[in-house]
C-alpha cells in the first residue's frame, strides 16, 4: 500500500513536471518569460492571503461537484449532469431565499435543503430512467443539462427576472443580507460554503470507508451483480447514490448563490465550466473524497493562477489557458510505467467509461 502511494505521488510529480515543461515550450514559442510566468501563476493563486482565499472560493463549487461525481463513480455510474443539477438547484434555492418569508437563517437553511433536494431529485430522475427504462444515464444527464439550463435561463429572463435597477440581466432579485452565507473573512471571497464542503468530504470519506451504505456503494461500483447477489438493491443504490451525487452538485450551485453572488445570474455557473472541472477533479483523485479536496484546490489554483497571470503580465489570457490545458492534459498520464507493467497491462482493456 505504502509503495503504491509513493508510486502515485511520483507519477503525479512527473506528470506535472512534464505538463510544466510543455507549458514552458508554449511560453517560449509565444515569447513569454518562462520563470516569471510560472511565478506569476503561483502568485496569482497563493501570492497573498486574499488570493489564497479566492483560490479556495474558486475551488468550492469544483469540490462539491467532484464529490458528487466521485460518489457516483464509486457506485459505478457516470453522472455527467452536474451542470444541470447545480444550475437548477441554484435557481430554486435563490427563489426560496428570496421569496420564503421568515428570518435569515430559516431562508438559508430552507435554500440549502431545497437546493440539495432539487439537484438530487434531478439526478435521481436520470437514475430512475436508467433503472426503470434502461436509458443510459450518461446521455440522459447530458441532455438534462441543456434542458435545465435553458429552463433556468427562462425563469430568470421572464417570470423571476429582477426588474429593479437596470433590469438588463437575466437574474433574480438580490438576496437579503440576512439570507446569505457569511464570508469566512471580511473583504474576501471565500465563504462558509467552503468549510461545509470540506466537512462533507470528510463525511463522505468516513461513509465510504466505514458504513455499510458506503460498502454497498463501493461494491456496486466494482461489480454490480456481486452487490445485487449480496442483497444490495440495484435500484436503491442507483437512486441513493444519484441523490447524493446530484445533491452535492446542487449544493455547489446553492453556495455560489448564497455565499458569493447573492442572486442567481444566468450563465454565471455554466460559463466557468465548474461541472467539467468537477468531473476532472473526481477523476484525478480516483474518486477518493479526501484526494478530491486536493484535486479541486489544484484546479481552483490553476484558475486563479491564470487570472493572476493575466492581470500581472503581458502574457495573454490565451497562453494562460493553453498552459492550464497542458497541465491537465498530462496530469493523469502514467509515466513511471516500466516496460514490464506496460506489457502486462496490454492484455487488459482500458477502463471503459470510468
Amino acid at each position, binding site marked *: 500500500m505504502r509503495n503504491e502511494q509513493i508510486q502515485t505521488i511520483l507519477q503525479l510529480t512527473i506528470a506535472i513536471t512534464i505538463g510544466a515543461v510543455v507549458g514552458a515550450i508554449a511560453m517560449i514559442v509565444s515569447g513569454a518569460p518562462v520563470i516569471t510566468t510560472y511565478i506569476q501563476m503561483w502568485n496569482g493563486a497563493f501570492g497573498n492571503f486574499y488570493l489564497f482565499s479566492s483560490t479556495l472560493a474558486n475551488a468550492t463549487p469544483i469540490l462539491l461537484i467532484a464529490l458528487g461525481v466521485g460518489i457516483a463513480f464509486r457506485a459505478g455510474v457516470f453522472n455527467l449532469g452536474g451542470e444541470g443539477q447545480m444550475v437548477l438547484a441554484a435557481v430554486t434555492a435563490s427563489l426560496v431565499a428570496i421569496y420564503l418569508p421568515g428570518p435569515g437563517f430559516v431562508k438559508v437553511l430552507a435554500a440549502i435543503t431545497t437546493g440539495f433536494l432539487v439537484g438530487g431529485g434531478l439526478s435521481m430522475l436520470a437514475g430512475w430512467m436508467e433503472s426503470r427504462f434502461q436509458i443510459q444515464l450518461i446521455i440522459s444527464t447530458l441532455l438534462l443539462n441543456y434542458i435545465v439550463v435553458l429552463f433556468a435561463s427562462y425563469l430568470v429572463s421572464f417570470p423571476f427576472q429582477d426588474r429593479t435597477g437596470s433590469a438588463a440581466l437575466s437574474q433574480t432579485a438580490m438576496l437579503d443580507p440576512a439570507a446569505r452565507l457569511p464570508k469566512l473573512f471580511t473583504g474576501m471571497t471565500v465563504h462558509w460554503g467552503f468549510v461545509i464542503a470540506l466537512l462533507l468530504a470528510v463525511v463522505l470519506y468516513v461513509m465510504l470507508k466505514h*458504513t*455499510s451504505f458506503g*460498502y454497498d456503494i463501493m461494491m456496486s461500483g466494482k*461489480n454490480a451483480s*456481486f452487490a*445485487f447477489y449480496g442483497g444490495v*438493491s440495484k435500484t436503491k443504490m442507483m437512486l441513493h447514490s444519484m441523490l447524493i451525487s446530484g445533491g452535492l452538485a446542487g449544493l455547489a450551485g446553492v453556495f455560489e448563490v448564497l455565499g458569493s453572488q447573492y442572486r442567481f445570474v444566468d450563465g454565471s455557473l455554466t460559463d466557468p465550466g465548474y461541472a467539467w472541472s468537477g468531473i476532472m477533479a473526481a477523476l484525478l483523485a480516483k474518486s477518493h473524497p479526501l484526494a478530491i479536496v486536493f484535486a479541486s484546490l489544484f484546479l481552483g489554483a490553476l484558475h486563479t493562477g491564470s487570472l493572476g497571470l493575466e492581470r500581472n503580465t503581458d502574457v495573454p489570457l490565451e497562453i494562460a489557458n493553453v498552459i492550464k490545458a497542458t497541465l491537465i492534459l498530462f496530469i493523469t498520464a502514467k509515466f513511471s510505467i516500466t516496460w514490464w507493467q506496460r506489457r502486462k497491462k496490454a492484455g487488459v482493456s482500458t477502463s471503459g467509461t470510468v
Partner: protein
Amino acid sequence: MSERILMKNVTKKYGDFYANNEITFSLQDAEIHAIIGENGAGKTTLMRILYGLEEQTSGSLYVNGKPVRFSSPTEAIKRGIGMVHQHFMLFPHLTVAENIVIGHEPSSAGLFNRKKAVSQVKELAASYKMTIDPTKKVKHCSVGEQQRIEILKVLYQGAETIILDEPTAVLTPHEVKGLMDTLKLLATSGKSIIIITHKLKEVMACANRITVLRNGEVTGSRHVDETSEDELATLMVGRDLKEVPPRAAQNGATHLEVKNVVVGEKGEKPTLHHVSLQVKQGEIVGIAGVSGNGQSELIQAITGLIPIESGDVTMDGESVNELTVYERRQKGISHIPEDRYQWGIAKSASVAENALMGYQYIDAYQSVRGVINRRRFRPLVTKWIEQFAIKTNSLQQQIDQLSGGNIQKLVVARELGHESSFLIAAEPTRGVDIGAMERIHEALIERRNEGASILLVSSELSEIRTLSDRIVVMFEGKIVGELSRDEATEEKISILMAGGTVHA
C-alpha cells in the same frame, strides 16, 4: 517422439512469494500431459509463462530445442502454442465462424469473406469430429460449445501445442467425454496437449504423462501406466483422502418449497416451466442436468435475483415472492453462486472486502447501526482461511491475485459462514483441488446433519450422488424426474438428463 517443449528451472516470484520454484517440465510430440496439484500450487502461473502472459523471474524455455522468450501471447502463438482459457476469450456478439477466424480472416482485396470463413470452420470442425454451427452467435452457445470454439480457434491459428486450463470444470459428463475424445484425436494427429485439471479420473483416462505440482514445486512426474489415482492424490495433497462423514438420519419438515414457478421473458419460451420442488430440513436435494436447462434460473428465482412470472416460492410455508434479495438473505437463504466471477466476488476488491458481503448489515459486525466494525469481523475471515486452507498473502490482497480455486474456497466459506437454514450450493467445488473438495463436502454434510436444507446444483454426477439425499433432474426448464439416493445410478440420471424416461 521428440521433445516439443522444455521449461527448465522456471521460477516465478510475486514479491517474496514463489508461485513457481525451479520447475522443469517437458512436453513430447503428440503427447497429452496433465498437470495437477492443489489450489495455488502454481499450475496456471506456469502455463501463463509458457503462453507469454507472464514472464518468468528466472529459468528458460525451449520450443523444439530452440531457446525462446515470450513477452506476449502473440509470440507464443507464432511458435505454435495456443491456450484455451478457462474464462473464454470470446466475442459474444460475433458468430462462431467469426470468432474462430478472427486474426486470420479469409479475405479478398481487404473484404472479409464470411462465406469462406463458415466453410473453413465447418471443415476444420469436421476433421476433428466436433459439431458446431458456424453461423450461430456465440452469446447463444452453451458453455461446451464455447469451449469447442476456443479449441477450434487455437487449431485454426495453427497451434501444434494446446494448453487447456481446467477445461472440464464447466462441462457436463457427456461433454467431458466428448472433449476427451477430441483431445485423443488431436494427439493422434500429432498435436501436443497440456491439460490442467483437478479430476483424477480424467487424468487417468486421457493423459500419457502426469506432472504434479505442490507449493510451486514439482513433486513428481509419472507415466500414466506407472501410477494410480491414489498415488496421484497423495502426491498432490501430501496425505491420504478421508471418507465422507456419515449422514445422520434426518426427518425434518419441508423448509423450502418451489410451487409451479414459471420464469421467462415475455413472448419467449419460458426458461422455467411450472417447476415444483421441496427441500426438507436436514436434506440435501441435488439437481442434476446439463447446464442451461433452467438450473441457473431456478437458483436466481429462489434467491430473488430474477422475478418470477407465476408460481410461488415459500419458506416454512410463507411466501417469499415479494421479498428482495436482502430480505430473503435475512430469512436465512445463503447462496454459493455457480459463476464466482460474475456473482461471487468483486475482482478489484480485497479478500477482506469480498468476505464481508452479506455480513455488512449484521449487528455483530457493526459498532453503531450502519457503521461496520471490521476489527470484529476479521477473526471470522481468518478462521475461514484456516479452515479451508485458502492461500492468500494477507486479507488486504486483491482477490483476483488468488488462484481460482482459492477464490472459490473463500466464496464457499463465506456462504457457509452464515450458518443459514437454507443453502444453495451451485457447483460448490468448481475448480478446487481434491483436498479442498473433501473439506467442502464435509462441511456441507455437516450443515445437513445440523438440520439445514441444501439445494445442490452440480454438473458433476459423482458429487451429486455423494452428497444428495434426493436427486431431481432438470431438462428444458422442467423437472423431468426424481430419484432417491439409493435408486440413483449414473446411468439413470444420464438418461433423464438427456430427456429420456426411466422406469423404476
